[in-house]
């Protein structure tokens, strides 16, 4: 067991208990031992002065792609968990669209083992909804949950069949896990490369209309209402989706929803010049969508920020826009982008941001963490929210560099990440691989 750790004099922000005050945090035996003023460290405790820094529960990301097994050249559980720790994340949920698909207990157990071996951020596996993510037969939710899965999803593609989505929501109730859906009506989105709108018209690229997402959001909300199941809507991108979710919440539908930092920060104009680092699915939308997503995050219609961290080898993006794969990495830029755009942009206060990046996602997926309550696992992140830094894609811990934020000057960065009482990342250490 690691030495006790005392974080002294920081601004302690714990959205789970509405705490925002200068205090010390004492960690012992991997758990939060105390939060308070002038705490005395026990004999042999490691003391860290964190004056001027924000001490919060570690960030939680319910949506990442770690590419292992199958595409270890792009990312592995270990490199993804390392990148997560560098970004202030203490827990991430790995999507099952691996090769082979994570659709059974053995595959789920493999992710858990790789995560424990790596020892950085916790990696919680998400199992597939359907065998092979083929959209036909339910995967064995019960056994996957037994092996460590925290949710099910066919992300990467939608659950196209209404019947399958219905049965998934019903069956998942036994295990009290969310069914996370990538909302996309496949025939409307087919062949699309970016948001359908004026920019796509000018660039001569096939668009994906907002309705392709909203039709599935509406369907999933109706099915959640029908079944009483918990639907989690991945990477919401349109103002129409926010509106549908808000109205469903008012009716008491069991829905949680996420939004990515890039959908909160960028519009389809980022695709100008055919920048393939602005190609993701769902696509970057319009300014009015960004405004609605920000409002939805603030009022809680959207529970959480999730990165949809999607590593791709550098040469896969070095091609024509139509031929490039969807997706960008996000773990190491998420806090900086959100803090810069939302906190410095006057949309959220820091406690609200940590609510959406830590407490909210932990609650949505029933995960440990997201709190500094006494006795909780000591998953903590310490943030510098004043010093600007510049994103250098070549110096990220992720194996991939596909980020549209390269060269961006951001304010807000994790300087210390602690998982189960153990320091897994310190900004001061030499970076690079």
């Amino acid at each position: 067991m690691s030495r006790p750790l005392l974080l002294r004099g920081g601004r302690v922000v714990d959205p789970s208990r509405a705490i925002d005050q200068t205090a010390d945090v004492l960690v012992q035996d991997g758990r939060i031992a105390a939060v308070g003023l002038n705490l005395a460290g026990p004999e042999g405790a490691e003391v860290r002065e964190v004056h001027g820094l924000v001490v919060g529960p570690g960030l939680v990301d319910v949506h990442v792609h770690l590419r292992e097994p199958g595409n270890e050249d792009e990312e592995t559980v270990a490199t993804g968990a390392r990148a997560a720790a560098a970004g202030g994340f203490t827990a991430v949920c790995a999507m099952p669209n691996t090769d082979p698909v994570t659709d059974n207990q053995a595959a789920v157990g493999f992710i858990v083992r790789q995560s424990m071996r790596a020892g950085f951020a916790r990696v919680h596996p998400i199992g597939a909804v359907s065998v092979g993510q083929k959209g036909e037969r339910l995967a064995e939710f019960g056994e996957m949950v037994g092996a460590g899965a925290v949710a099910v999803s066919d992300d990467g593609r939608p659950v196209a069949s209404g019947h399958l989505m219905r049965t998934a929501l019903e069956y998942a109730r036994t295990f009290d896990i969310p069914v996370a859906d990538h909302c996309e009506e496949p025939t409307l989105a087919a062949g699309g490369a970016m948001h359908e709108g004026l920019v796509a018209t000018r660039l001569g690229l096939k668009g994906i209309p907002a309705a392709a997402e909203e039709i599935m959001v509406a369907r999933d909300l109706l099915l959640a209402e029908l079944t009483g199941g918990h639907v989690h809507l991945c990477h919401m991108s349109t103002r129409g989706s926010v509106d549908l979710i808000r109205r469903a919440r008012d009716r008491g539908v069991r829905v949680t929803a996420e939004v990515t930092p890039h959908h909160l920060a960028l519009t389809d104009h980022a695709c100008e010049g055919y920048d393939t680092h602005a190609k993701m699915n769902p696509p970057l939308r319009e300014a009015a969508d960004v405004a609605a997503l920000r409002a939805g995050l603030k009022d809680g219609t959207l529970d959480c920020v999730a990165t949809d961290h999607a590593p791709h080898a550098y040469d896969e993006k070095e091609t024509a826009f139509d031929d490039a794969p969807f997706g960008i990495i996000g773990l190491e830029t998420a806090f900086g982008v959100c803090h810069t755009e939302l906190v410095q942009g006057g949309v959220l206060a820091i406690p609200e941001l940590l609510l959406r990046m830590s407490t909210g996602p932990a609650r949505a997926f029933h995960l440990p963490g997201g709190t500094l309550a006494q006795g909780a696992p000591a998953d903590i992140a310490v943030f510098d929210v004043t010093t600007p830094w510049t994103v250098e894609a070549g110096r990220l811990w992720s194996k991939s560099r596909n980020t549209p934020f390269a060269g961006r000057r951001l304010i807000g960065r994790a300087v210390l990440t602690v998982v189960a009482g153990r320091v897994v990342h310190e900004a001061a250490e030499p970076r690079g691989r």
Partner: protein
Amino acid sequence: MTLTLGKDLVGLEGLSPEQIRLILDTAEPFKEVSERPIKKVPALRGKTIVNLFFEASTRTRISFEFAEKRLSADTVNVAASGSSVSKGETLVDTARNLEAMRIDMVVIRHGASGAAQFLGDRIRSNVINAGDGKHEHPTQALLDLLTIRDRHGRIAGLKVCLVGDVLHSRVARSNIWGLLKLGAHVGVCGPRTLLPRGIEDLGVTVFGRVEEAIEWADVLNVLRLQLERMERGFIPSLREYYRVFGVSLERLERAPRDLTIMHPGPMNRGVEIDSRVADGPHSVILDQVTNGVAVRMAVLYLLAGGRPELADAAKKGAADG
């Protein structure tokens, strides 16, 4: 400062009205070269040009090749079917290999929007877009502009309507930019399934019925309807398309004025255009083809660093020598 085109010609969206006029004006002296018994001037002697066609093309490729040869350039044609592209080589590797052979210019046709810019951003050679996906086909629009100017003596103030599959048409996009920049009024007409979202925001008028477009326009530029559009479900049948949107003689006879009829080719007679219209007195379809060579000579000449005022001199020098 002398007006130039920059390194590449990717599209008309990025050009100023002055740059477009420069190309059209430079094309004028080159028209005459093609009328001579010896159709050659030495303007690009010693320059090497690769015509890199990832999509099948007859007329555009031949037009470029004639333009290059009449300027005395050395040319190589690469068709995708006979190249390493079919062996899985990526566009970026193709670009690097061309660069390594120290070529001066690349004319590229590619099925992906943005391919010409992609290439231009990565190699030092001049890149000319001969059509990229649904994005732009700038030399086609330039030859259309030249043809309209020849016929009407001006472009500003004219009403030009693009009829047909605007959604999938790079010709339409380049024409819209070029016409708007030179002060024309631009209309588009077609079934709503074949008009792109947000097209009105570009500053064009949308006509739902071809009769309205014909009543409004001075010039109709009739776009080719790809036969696969029917298979993909954008229109129910070619027969109905012709009945509702076809540019027929009967419809034109009811027009308040004589319309100039254009078509970028290749035509589907009896689908988007009536043969009697295509072959009729108001058709300038073959003039477009003739002007294509001159416009492409102008673009090649200007991108190679030729000074516009020397285009005449280059021509005269050739005639003397």
